[in-house]
């Protein structure tokens, strides 16, 4: 059994799996249930001034037989009184002292009011703060959430206010609704933040009802942009985590968020620099029980690789994520089709023919009259991977290295040579 315990900027939890600040972490009842199920930590639903929510708040993006590969929401921060939330935080902490409870905070851009909020909340015994500079809807129109997170100066200013009075680690949660997330990450670093978390949700309109022509979701026939999350955003989140992890001016512990549903997703985020991972949509879809396989699968993965600690994964792939102009131009792969595994759906053929480089041939087969087999024209295959992506059979199309192994040449080197 590997040690799954992690340390993210001094915030410790028995495993890397935290509930993200979201509906599943809205109340003590829910957080107690989550801890009972095995979750290592919870970032409490954002505390701040009371708000009023609308009815009809979420919508899902479905793909074929899959429900909710993406989800958006127009719900705001907690709609429960601060004293109730704080009492429940104390109860959870008392019942599960080994778990991490992080309080998510949002407040108007006023130093005194931020100080007041931080001091009030930290009295409850939270293990850390997460500053919600990411919520893209509702609060941002009032100068909070993403309105702060999209401006590095505001991020820096507000983070400083919190760090001034906080006695526990401060995580700055970043919005992806920005051109270069490293700019706000650096601002958090300059302000003295202890960690960053990302991504908050992405601006989105999930759909339009083609019968009523109303936006989805609609509130009395009107819609507003929401925050997009779920499995479909994982690649965006992972890229932003990796970009911050490899930025010399950031160099902060990261809590990764965005489409994480399985232990495999968690391993990927950890390899790219996350020391904890936060989950919301998967719990909203399946309930707290999903953490059982996340823990079990991560344990087996670490054991199988002979790793003693989950922390041994953190950042191990960051050095492999580089700029395009550092990629080896001499590297070459081609597709190989395993004729024994091929089921002859011809998906690879038409993908290559219509959308790639026309280098899969249909040749007369010995399997029977009128049958064809698929063979890659390796001389023309550019190694784009598309055929292996559309193939429905596992390990039927593999990409095989064919270059001669000669010295690496990169675009950067070519430019230097040209000069």
């Amino acid at each position, binding site marked *: 059994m590997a040690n799954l315990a992690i340390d993210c900027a001094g915030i410790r939890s028995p495993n890397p799996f935290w509930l993200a600040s979201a509906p599943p972490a809205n109340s003590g009842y829910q957080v107690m249930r989550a801890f009972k199920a095995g979750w290592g930590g919870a970032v409490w639903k954002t505390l701040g001034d009371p708000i009023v929510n609308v009815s009809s708040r979420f919508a899902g993006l479905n793909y074929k037989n899959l429900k909710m590969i993406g989800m958006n929401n127009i719900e705001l921060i907690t709609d429960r009184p601060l004293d109730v939330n704080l009492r429940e935080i104390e109860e959870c902490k008392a019942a599960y002292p080994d778990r991490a409870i992080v309080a998510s905070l949002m407040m108007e851009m006023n130093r005194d009011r931020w100080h007041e909020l931080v001091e009030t909340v930290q009295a409850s015994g939270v293990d850390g703060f997460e500053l919600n500079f990411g919520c893209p809807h509702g609060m941002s129109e009032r100068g909070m959430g993403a309105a702060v997170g999209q401006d590095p100066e505001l991020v820096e200013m507000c983070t400083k206010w919190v760090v001034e009075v906080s006695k526990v680690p401060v995580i700055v949660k970043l919005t992806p609704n920005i051109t270069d997330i490293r700019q706000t990450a650096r601002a958090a670093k300059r302000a003295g933040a202890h960690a960053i978390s990302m991504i908050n949700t992405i601006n989105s309109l999930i759909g339009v009802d083609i019968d009523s022509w109303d936006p989805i979701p609609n509130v009395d026939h009107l819609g507003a942009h929401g925050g997009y999350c779920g499995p479909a955003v994982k690649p965006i989140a992972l890229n932003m985590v990796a970009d911050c992890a490899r930025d010399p001016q950031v160099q902060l512990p990261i809590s990764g968020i965005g489409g994480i549903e399985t232990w495999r997703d968690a391993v990927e985020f950890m390899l790219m620099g996350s020391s904890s991972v936060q989950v919301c949509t998967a719990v909203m879809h399946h309930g707290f029980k999903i953490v059982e396989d996340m823990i079990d699968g991560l344990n087996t993965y670490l054991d199988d690789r002979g790793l003693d600690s989950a922390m041994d994964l953190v950042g191990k792939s960051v050095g492999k994520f580089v700029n395009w102009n550092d990629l080896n131009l001499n590297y070459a792969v081609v597709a190989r089709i395993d004729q024994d595994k091929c089921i*002859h*759906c*011809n*998906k690879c053929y038409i993908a290559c023919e219509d959308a790639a480089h026309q280098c899969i041939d249909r040749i007369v087969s010995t399997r029977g009259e*009128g049958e064809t087999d698929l063979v890659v024209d390796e001389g023309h295959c550019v190694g784009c991977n598309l055929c292996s992506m559309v193939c*429905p059979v596992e390990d039927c199309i593999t990409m095989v290295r064919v270059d001669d192994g000669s010295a690496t040449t990169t675009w950067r080197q070519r430019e230097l040579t040209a000069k």
Partner: protein
Amino acid sequence: MGQPALPREHLEHTQLGPPLAKDLTRLDVVIEANRCLDCYDAPCIRACPTSIDIPSFIKKIATGNMLGSARTIMDANPLGASCARVCPTEELCEGACVYHHDAEPIRIGDLQRYATDWLRESGRTLFAPGPPSGKSVAIVGGGPAGLSAARELARAGHAVTIFERHAEAGGLNTYGIVPFRLPTDVALWEAEQVKALGVTVKTGVEIGADVPATTLLADYDAVILAMGMGSVPKLGIPGEDLPGVYDALDLIERAKFGERVPIGARVAIIGAGNTAIDAATVSGRLGAEEVTMWYRRGAESMTAYPFEVEFAKSEGVAFRFYRLPVRIEGDGRVSALVVARTEIIDGVPRAIPGTEETIPVDSVVRAIGQSKLAALYDAFGVAHQRGIATVDAGLRTSNPQVYAAGDCLFGGGAIDAMVVSAAQAGKDVAASVDRTFRGLDS
């Protein structure tokens, strides 16, 4: 002429029981539709005699374009609703599905049934007659091949008249397939779709008996022979004229339309094809307690589809192989069937002397194939070989005004006599006639 139309209450839920195919839910169907890989140059299309663009109609179900889905099916196959129920899909589309070996093949038949059921229930019309060409075609027989040919010719603008000896169109689909496999209203709906294109269907008319062939040759620019086949031939053994000996197709037709056929408790079915299976299961549903199929060859030689055989077994039908009926006994009515063991000599089953046994039975059903309607070929001046019309690549007979389709072409093992094959033959002959009318063929 002018037999009464069928009583509508016998169309679906007959005394023979409700349809076997279970109702399909939208949830079930969409999950299945989304499972389809949407292959390129899909093998299921190649396996379909009518070349339905199966991945296309399945994807249209998934996107909620039900009209487009039904159109894709019915455009390629005018009998698409019937075929969804009677095609041996394991041997055709589903057998060719790329999932066949590593996973469960897509339930194409079920999806086709769902789409065509949607169309029937919607009451929508898919096709329109073409601009009038001034040409006329007579079709002898309103079964699958005749209806298919009529539909295509009407869409091309030709004036089509079908002559059907029964009270309703549909042929085998209406009269010869058990209703729990193919509800009669499905067969009749398909005929209605053809009539809606302006095709005239003259029912209760037997060409040769009621109207001479010469009249058709004189009144129409082209004639298509699609009359199918005749009754089940006699066994050629003593006692087969006794009451209690039935022609399988006659038995199925009478039972299908409500007659309480007095089949008795013990029934012997002679034969092992799909009609024999239907006669066996119908006998059971008419109240027979012991239904046994007697076949002169072994199980591996049965022409019935494996799924039909399995169904018959599930209905309690027993199978006895290598047995040949030698006589039927009875005093005023069947009381016993005498069978002998067979041995296969040079491919031919022969009774082994001294092996006879007497089986007490109440009824004997002949299901040993159907006779060809050779006399009609002669009336139209059409050359044929043992009841199979001699045709060219355009399905044109030796009389250049006359074409042939469906069972008139099938036999001798060259083409399987499936409903779906008849549908394609109808399309082929219509295309050929149309080409001739347009002067594209000689």
